[in-house]
Each structure stands twice: as C-alpha cells, then as structure tokens.
C-alpha cells in the first residue's frame, strides 16, 4: 500500500493568506491578557521570550540542536496539504529560531542574516501569527525527529510570547473566555446544560423505552465524568453511550455545570490559562465529593488530563487510584469482565476504522482500549495504513486551535492525508476519541468526497449494549 498522499512540491507562500481573525478585547480581558496589541509589543515579546527560554528546556534545546536534516519536512499534514515550505516543521521552528539567534546567541548577534538571525519586526510577527496558527500541535514531527524535537513546544512558546503582548486569535481566546463564564468551550449555560441532559433522558425513553439518567451536579456521586461539551450538543450518540454504560454497570455518575468540558484551549495559548482551565476539573471533583474522575472522548483533554493534571492541579490523592483515568479504561475493563450483554450485530451496517487523535496517541500513548472496545462491539473492524495510525497518526486538520471557519482551507489541507488513508481502508465509519476530530473530519470527508461517517467509540457500545 502506498502512502496516502504524495509529497507536494514546494510552493512558496501557498498558505500565507490563511490567517485566523485577531482576538477581541472583550475576550482578552476575561483571560488575563492585554486587551489589544500593546504599544511596546517588541520589548514585551522579547522579555517574554527570555522568560520562556529560561523556563522551558524543550524550547531552548530544540532551538539549539536542530541540524536541519529535513526528516520532519514531509511528515507534517499541513505541509502535505498546502505545499507551503513554512509549514515544514523545521521551517516553522526557524521562524522563532531566527529571532532567538538574533537576540540570544553570540553567533546571531555577530553574523546576523548570514547565520539566519533576524530582528523581530512587523513582518516577522505577521509570519508568526500566520504560521504558528497553521500548526495543530499534533507532534507528528517529534516522532520522526532523531532528537525528538517537538514543534508543538515551539508553537506553544511562540503563541505564549505573542499572547503576552496582546496578540492572539479570536477563536482560541473566545473559547477560553467561554470556559470562565459557563464552564465549557461551547458557552452552554448551566441551565441549558441541565435541559439538554433532561432532553436526552426523555428522548431515550420515547425512542428506546429505557429509563436512563443523565445526572448533573449530583453531589456524592461516585464518578465525575468530564466529557467534551460537544458530546451533549452534537455527538449525542457518544453521550448516550456513556450513560448506557454507567446505567448497565450500576455506577452512580454525574457531570458538573462548573466543568462540563475536558477540552483545554489554554494548551493552545499560554501556561496560566492551561493551568486555570485544568484546575476546574479537580475543583469540581472536590465540590461534588466524587471518588473518581473519568475523562471522556476528547483528545487534548486527555493529554492535559493524563500528562499535565498532577503537575498543574495535583496532587490528586483525594481520589481513588488509579488516576488519571480515561473512561475507555473503565468501559473496557467492564466489557472484558463480561459485565454487559452485547449484540455486535447492531453495528453490522458499519465497516469501522479507528482514527487515533494526535494527543491521545502521541502524547498519552493511549492506543489499545478504544480499539478493544470497538472490536468488542462491532463485527467489521479494519485498520488504516500502518504509517497513518497509532503514534504515526495524522491530524484531523482542526486541532491546536485551528477549528476556526476563516481558515477552512487550512483545515481541509491538514485533513487530506487522513481522508486519503480512510478512503484506502474502505471503511464507512471512522470512530475516534476526540471532539475536535469529530467536528473537523466530517467536513474533510465531504471535501475529499470520501463516503465515511464520523463518530465516537462509545457510540458503538451505546448501539450494541442490550439493556
């Protein structure tokens, strides 16, 4: 089997016109950032850059040791989709590296442009705003770099530096601001969240004749479920899958109107907001007096949950071990113990493949549980090309704060390798474990005319479980 997409020829500036809308002042003040670009933006950014270099070994080391071998160049889905050379991971990092060299290294100060050093200017900032928001922080490059250079670290650093001077995008800042107002990325107010849960309860009673609870803010429940808010709004089949699983297992659970969101857009902006959003999960768990937290089907939520929570918001020792835990852990352990009656034929219309979300696979090493659940709940499971799954998975095209409508061209370009791998597999349903993938991939499949539905892993359990 051939690789899903051929490597394109370089087309300079091919995606330079794809820019996110700038952040709005009303959102910026809610997330503790300057309302607009500050007057002394250059000094502010250089000061922040010095701080970042002293705080993140990753950033300094990765800027220092890249040998520019180009192994990463054809690994980035955004380069494969656009052909814009600045979307090659090495070239993307060079955008920050040239400023680093100019102000923070001897060689750059002495030799200037000959040593690729460049002053921070309006032109450079324009490139930063454009290309650091054409990276979905999927980290595929890091898996192929001989030194593990992780462009996501560079992209995050650049975004953090820009944010300090009041430069950010409307989409990302708006989402973080919504979390501090409503508890979730979509801006669903607590009352509406409760209504939506009640609606699902009634709907299930009417259509399937089963009484299943969708508890909200239930103090003393055993489990706090932290789903992506999109699961109640768009991916309702996934939400129904969760509820049926808890119902059949007899486990008391709840969602929280303070933290009905696992997705953490602080990860796409700066450390302070990453921490502040993440803290909400443990705050909700303490107030609801639960014994366990399970993360739902959200990609970067699980990266933050698994890899960062103990650091940012821990310790988590008021919970029962094991933690941090993904809901698929619980679901799979119950399935493997035979806790559910499962009728696989309920999913017979689907030839299913599994798309590893970048953060779930590469950052969390979480590969088997979702596959196990799918294989236990459907009869027809296929894998895509081996260079496009597991830690080598391709981004859906919309991660890292890129799910904004104004850069639809970039989202489609980034999703291209995934779409072609899906086409080659012949699957008619792509299950995945991430709300952003579930939002971007349907558009991608439509764009490339691949006849494939997108949905969650728990959707399959929801359909196959016999209550």
């Amino acid at each position, binding site marked *: 089997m051939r690789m899903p997409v051929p490597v394109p020829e*370089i087309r300079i500036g091919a995606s330079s016109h794809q820019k996110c809308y700038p952040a709005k002042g009303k959102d910026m003040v*809610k997330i*503790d950032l300057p309302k607009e670009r500050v007057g002394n933006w250059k000094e502010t950014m250089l000061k922040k850059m010095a701080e970042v270099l*002293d*705080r*993140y*070994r*990753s950033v300094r*080391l*990765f800027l*220092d*040791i890249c*040998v*520019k*071998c*180009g*192994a990463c*160049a054809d*690994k980035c889905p955004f380069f494969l989709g656009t052909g814009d*050379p600045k979307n*090659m991971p090495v*070239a993307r990092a060079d955008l920050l590296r040239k400023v680093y060299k100019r102000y923070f*290294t001897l*060689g750059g100060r002495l030799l200037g442009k000959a*040593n*690729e050093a460049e002053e921070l200017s309006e032109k450079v900032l324009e490139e930063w705003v454009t290309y650091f928001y054409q990276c979905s922080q999927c980290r595929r490059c*890091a*898996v*192929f*770099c*001989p*030194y*593990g250079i*992780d462009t996501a*670290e560079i992209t995050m650093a650049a975004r953090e530096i820009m944010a300090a001077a009041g430069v950010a995008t409307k989409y990302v800042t708006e989402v973080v601001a919504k979390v501090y*107002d*409503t*508890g979730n990325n979509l801006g669903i107010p*607590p009352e509406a969240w409760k209504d939506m849960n009640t609606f699902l309860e009634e709907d299930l009673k009417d259509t399937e004749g089963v009484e299943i609870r969708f508890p909200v*803010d239930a*103090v003393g429940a055993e489990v706090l479920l932290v789903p992506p808010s999109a699961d109640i709004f768009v991916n309702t089949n996934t939400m129904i899958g969760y509820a049926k699983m808890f119902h059949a297992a007899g486990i008391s659970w709840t969602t929280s109107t*303070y933290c009905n969101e696992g997705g953490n857009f602080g990860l796409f902006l700066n*450390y*302070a907001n990453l*921490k502040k959003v993440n803290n909400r999960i443990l*705050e909700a768990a303490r*107030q*609801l007096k639960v014994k366990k937290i399970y993360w739902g089907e959200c990609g970067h939520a699980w990266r933050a949950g698994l*890899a*960062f929570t*103990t*650091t*940012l918001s821990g310790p988590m020792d008021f919970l029962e*071990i094991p933690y941090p835990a993904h809901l698929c852990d619980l679901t799979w352990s119950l399935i493997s113990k035979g806790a559910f009656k499962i009728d696989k034929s309920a999913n017979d219309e689907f030839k299913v493949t599994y798309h590893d979300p970048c953060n779930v*696979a*590469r950052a969390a*090493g979480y590969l088997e549980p979702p596959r196990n659940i799918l294989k236990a709940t459907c009869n027809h499971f296929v894998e895509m090309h081996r260079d496009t799954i*597991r*830690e*080598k998975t391709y981004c859906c095209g919309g991660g890292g704060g890129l799910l904004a409508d104004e850069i639809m061209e970039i989202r489609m370009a980034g999703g291209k390798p995934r779409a072609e791998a899906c086409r080659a597999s012949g699957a008619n349903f792509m299950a995945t474990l991430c709300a952003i993938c579930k939002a971007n991939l349907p558009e991608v499949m439509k764009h490339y005319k691949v006849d494939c539905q997108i949905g969650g892993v728990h959707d399959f359990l929801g359909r196959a479980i016999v209550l």
Partner: protein
Amino acid sequence: MGSRLLFGILPYITAGVFFLGILYRFWVWIRTPVPLRIVTTPGPKTRIGVAGRLIGDILWFPNLFKADKLLWAAGWCFHILLWLVLLRHLRYFLFPVPGWVAGIQTLGLYAGYLIPIPIALLLGRRLLMERPLYISILGDYFALFLLLSITLSGLLLNLLFRTYLIDVKALINGLIHFSYSVPEVHWLFVFHFLVVMTLLIYFPFSKLMHGGGLLLSPTRNQKANFEQRFVNLWDFPVSYSDQNLSTPERYRETLTGSKEGEKE
C-alpha cells in the same frame, strides 16, 4: 613566530574553548527546568527503559530510520565511520599505544577511505533536493565543508606523506606534556591541523552539539509513568477576576445554596 602560534598556543586555546564550551552549553540546558511531561509514544515506563531508548537513539537513529531510509543510511554511516577514524587517531595521543588501538588501525584506515562518501551525500542532498535546499543555512554547509576538508586532507596525508607520522606523534606528545616543539611537517598537515582546530572551536556553539542535546531532550529522556506526580519548579497559582462568571466560589453557592462559600 607563526609556527609557535600554530603549534604552541592555538592548540591550548582550542582545547579550552572546546571543553569549556561544551560544559557551558550543558550547564545552560541542565539549569533550564522541564515544567511538563512531554514524552512521546512509545514512552518508556522506567529509568532502565529511558536508558535503553537513549542508547538506541545514539547507536541506531531509529526515528531517522522511520523517517527517511536514504538520509538514515548516509547519516548513520557517517557517524560510525567518524568514530572509527577518531579511535584510529588515538594512536597519536596515547603512549604507549594500547593493543586495541593498534588492532583497529586497518579498520580505521578503511573508514577513512570511505568517510568522504556519506559526507558528499549529505552535502549533495542539501544542494540538490528541494526541501533540504530550502531549509539549509550557511552553518549547515560550513560544518559539511569543514568535515570534507578534514577527511580529504587526512586521506591525502595518509596516502602521500606517511613519513611525517613520527613528527606528528612528537608534536602531540609535546603538547600533552606542555613542552613546545615545532615539527617538520608538510603544509598539508598544517592545513589538516588548522581545520580540525576550527571545527573544535566551532563545535560547542553550533548545531554540532546535537549529540549531547539528545541526552537532555525531554521527549526522549522522560518516563511515561503518568501515575507519578511530576512537579514544575516554577509553577504559580492562578485566580479568577471579577470578569469571570463561573468561579469555584459561585459554583459552591449553586451546590449548597449558601452565600458564604464556607469550607466543608
């Protein structure tokens, strides 16, 4: 005077810059904290696993192997041949010459014949292939140019001017014992010697530190033991402003119905 500078002073400056430079670079990297766990899949769970991963990275370049077979072949062959050539050169530095150094002389010699090939390949792909050409900068060509000059001049010295071997040994022995002597050597040796010193001075301040950097690269050297707490040394508290509607205090009020927000 010139020869005194070349053989009596520059070698010591070179050695100082090389070793202190490397120590400085390591010190800067090591003193910079690693705030978050960013290990990539498949991440090792234990320290032994991490050691295995790093040793594998050093010996085999597995990521490069996955990424680009031709580049891997050129890069891997170059590094192996370079080590053989360097080990062969130990005979100029060790007195008396240990048996194993004597034993690898032939192997090192063949490595010396072959090493220009991968260097030329690495240079060629930068000049001829679209993507490497786009990303290459002066420093990339400079390093390859130095390496090519060193290996070619070394090769010529071996093939054409072997009689100077004793003098070279005397020179280095003198340097080690801080007794200055000007050897009678061919100009080609002077060239070889100068370019090597240039490379060693350039080394600590360039991308050539990539080997040392690999050992400290967080995505490669961290453990994927997520159940253990990872502490960020510069972590700071965060709080809500009156701009935010959804705060822990307000949530407590909705849950308990009380306005106090007292501790449970």
